[in-house]
């Protein structure tokens, strides 16, 4: 077996770009949803909870098709975004990132919600009696104490994004250099006779990236645990 080719490195770079953008864009949305579900009681909460979890239980192909309906060029959100900010999803890497983000959202929300629920509300009350507004109490108490969950959620989301296949290929197809991420490239190589070594290389890179993400997040969580001396 030889070193990966230039094309294969391009696939890795594209996959990393898609996954990192997906996680960064989803992070604040997921945290906001996690906070709402953990701390607020409002009408429609059960429906929101179900909607967030939908990508986890639907066949990914169905999620990809729904994304196509909503964010396709003639879909309501897709049409509006193209007209107003010139953002196009279909057949673009941005679409791959959107598909990865939607698939990663439920996992990120679950991890963050657990860690927000674990933050003792009585500490927030104590902060309020000490003169903190609700917003300051959130920034200084809830957010830092739930940080391990944010990191765990980001790692899970990143790993899920790297592995995303069904929704991506349905929504943005399998275009080399644009939407062909690692799983799609491996799938494509498997269809070609004699490309076994390429499959092996790409598969090994996938494993290495996932393990690296796992180790990095473990290290980050442990570091923040140690420094903050707070056991969740």
């Amino acid at each position, binding site marked *: 077996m030889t070193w990966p080719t230039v094309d294969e490195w391009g696939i890795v770079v594209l996959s990393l770009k898609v996954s990192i953008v997906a996680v960064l864009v989803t992070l604040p949305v997921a945290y906001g949803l996690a906070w709402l579900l953990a701390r607020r009681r409002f009408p429609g909460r059960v429906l929101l909870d179900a909607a967030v979890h939908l990508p986890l239980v639907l066949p990914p192909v169905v999620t990809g098709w729904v994304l196509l309906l909503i964010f396709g060029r003639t879909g309501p959100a897709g049409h509006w975004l193209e007209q107003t900010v010139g953002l196009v999803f279909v057949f673009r890497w941005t679409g791959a990132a959107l598909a990865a983000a939607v698939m990663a959202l439920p996992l990120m929300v679950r991890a963050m919600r657990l860690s927000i629920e674990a933050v*003792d509300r*009585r*500490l927030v*009350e*104590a*902060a*309020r*009696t*000490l*003169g*903190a*507004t609700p917003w300051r109490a959130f920034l*200084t*108490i809830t957010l*830092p*104490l739930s940080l391990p969950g944010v990191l765990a959620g980001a790692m899970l989301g990143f790993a899920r994004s790297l592995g995303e296949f069904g929704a991506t290929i349905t929504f943005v197809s399998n275009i080399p250099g644009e939407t062909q991420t690692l799983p799609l490239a491996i799938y494509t190589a498997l269809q070609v006779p004699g490309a076994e070594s390429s499959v092996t290389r790409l598969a090994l890179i996938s494993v290495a990236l996932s393990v690296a993400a796992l180790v990095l997040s473990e290290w980050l969580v442990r570091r923040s645990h140690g420094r*903050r*001396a*707070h056991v969740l």
Partner: protein
Amino acid sequence: MSFDVAIRYAAGERERDATISSAAKLVALTGPSGAGKTTLLNCVAGLHRRLSGHIRVGGETLFDRELGVDLPPERRRAGYVFQDLRLFPHKTVAANLAYGARPESPWKSPAEALDFLGIGHLARRYPARLSGGEAKRVAIGRALLSAPRFLLLDEPLTSLDPARAEEIVRLIERIRDELGLPILLVSHAAAEVERLAGATFVLD
């Protein structure tokens, strides 16, 4: 009048009435467990919202259903020392003390408070590594540094050995006499209540 409280509030399953009206600097609240003493302190601090009536402390109206006054906790300026202390686990002792610190507090800085409380050597520790008596003093210091208009002390002597309890009682005496803040104290300890309080109200 230091405390003028006449409220009806929901504590657990039942509705309770409480009337506290006293000019004494330190007012004690006693009564059996489950009498709603902590809930009453939460009402005064603005943490318990299911109530009617009025709460005035040192002439300031914190809550009055009829006048439509209901100050949020951060504007009531209560120095609340919780029974479970509620030190912030991710902040050092110094950072806990500094959290609500205001320039009008009796001390110029958290460092001065550390000296007054006799816990200067603990500034860089995290709450998980404090003894019960040390943590209690940090909680009292944190409340006082926020320049409160009054203090709410919930069972400040529980889980302390007699020597530590005596230290805390002396500290409360100093706060009462030197700082002159109105104090509402919940306690089971009859001897300390006798020694500290200018007036005692019983909830049952």
